């Protein structure tokens, strides 16, 4: 029954049988996290228009990869794809380059050498009463000005509410790295807010 097998295979190829499965899967795995996907894309790209392109592209990728989804942590899975799509999209359209680990170490070293350690950062930390009065535009500027590796963890944790473990999955780093990037990122935001209020 060669012809019969051919028909069945053709049906499957033409996405009539398997296609509906992956479409249903896409609708239940990806669509519920669309707002989160868009929010992350918006923070990584800095623009709503670019975020639309990135999110659509990420959704296409998620759809093609839906068979590899293992049924756990759907949001982190979707956001991982969004993050990777954002990086390649920005690389293509804006010459974006993610700060490499070496660069980051160099940056850290400089900071250590210049004495930008905990003591000094704490000295620059604005009072919590002043922080509470910061407006959304200043916050937005402070977050947008962060280096990408810091911005993504701060956004994922403090705006999107992911756990350290989920952030590690999305950013592809160990939890220890998540912790150090998060604390450095937050400290930088606080420094910017403090400077703004001084000036």
């Amino acid at each position: 029954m060669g012809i019969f097998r051919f028909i069945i295979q053709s049906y499957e190829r033409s996405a009539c049988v398997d296609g509906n499965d992956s479409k249903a899967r896409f609708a239940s795995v990806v669509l519920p996290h669309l707002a989160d996907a868009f929010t992350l894309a918006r923070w990584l790209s800095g623009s709503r228009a670019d975020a639309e392109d990135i999110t659509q592209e990420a959704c296409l990728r998620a759809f093609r990869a839906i068979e590899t989804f293992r049924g756990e942590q759907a949001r982190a899975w979707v956001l991982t794809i969004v993050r990777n799509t954002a990086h390649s999209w920005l690389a293509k359209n804006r010459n974006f380059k993610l700060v490499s680990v070496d660069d980051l170490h160099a940056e850290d070293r400089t900071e250590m050498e210049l004495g930008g350690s905990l003591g000094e950062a704490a000295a620059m930390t604005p009072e919590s009463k002043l922080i509470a009065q910061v407006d959304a535009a200043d916050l937005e500027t402070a977050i947008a000005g962060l280096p990408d590796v810091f911005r993504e963890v701060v956004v994922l944790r403090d705006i999107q509410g992911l756990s350290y473990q989920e952030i590690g999955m999305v950013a592809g780093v160990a939890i220890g790295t998540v912790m150090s990037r998060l604390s450095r990122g937050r400290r930088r935001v606080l420094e910017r807010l403090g400077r703004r209020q001084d000036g």
Partner: protein
Amino acid sequence: MTLRGATPEHASLLVHAYLDGELSVSEAVEAERAIAADSTLAAEAAAVRALKHVLQTKLPPERLPPDFTARVANRVGLARRPRPTWTVLAASVVLAAGLSSAVTSMLLRTTDDAIYAESVDSHLRALMAARPVEVTSSERHAVKPWFNGKSVQAPKVADLSADGFPLVGGRIDVIHGAPVPAVVYNRRLHTISVWAATEAQAERLTKGATSVNGTNLVVWRAGDMTYWAASDLNAAELATFARAFAAAP
């Protein structure tokens, strides 16, 4: 992980983790002690706590652009009805000449059944969510306008409380690639989701009644609209519901 003997850098990481609720109970107790004993850590904790609060309250998640979900659904082909390629059509002709057409109809039915499975999925997903509806009201005049502009079809929202089916509210599902209004009713402890079909969906709802993994489905026409409903309610009572819905003004 303990704070005793920790470097300032390490202690600071733990303060952040403490404020993020990522420490175990014993670690959290240690962190609290350290914050109380060290004014630098205390200042950092206060600032980070305030920062976390303003970030959460002043930078809410982005709102999706209008129709964005529908556009994404379109992009991945959720909205298009799958069509067999020409090779399949050609082969089907050859096949039809030699084989019983029952085989073809069996294959076709597999694809048509997908709409029932998808609607049961939507129904079950809604039950698992915190609330099975996006607009909660037992008042039909509050539910009906909520659908305006959210879907092409304006569903009938009938008051069936006298028949023992109180109205719970409504939501929008995406079934077979199209947003579709869902009106939700209760029967004792059972929840019933009722959808108003688009034309494309109506074409696929060829069965009067069926069930998918224990969830019953019933399909009926009222005027020029096709409705279908899913519930774990028994098939007889679900049919009663459909009759009451169709008869209601």
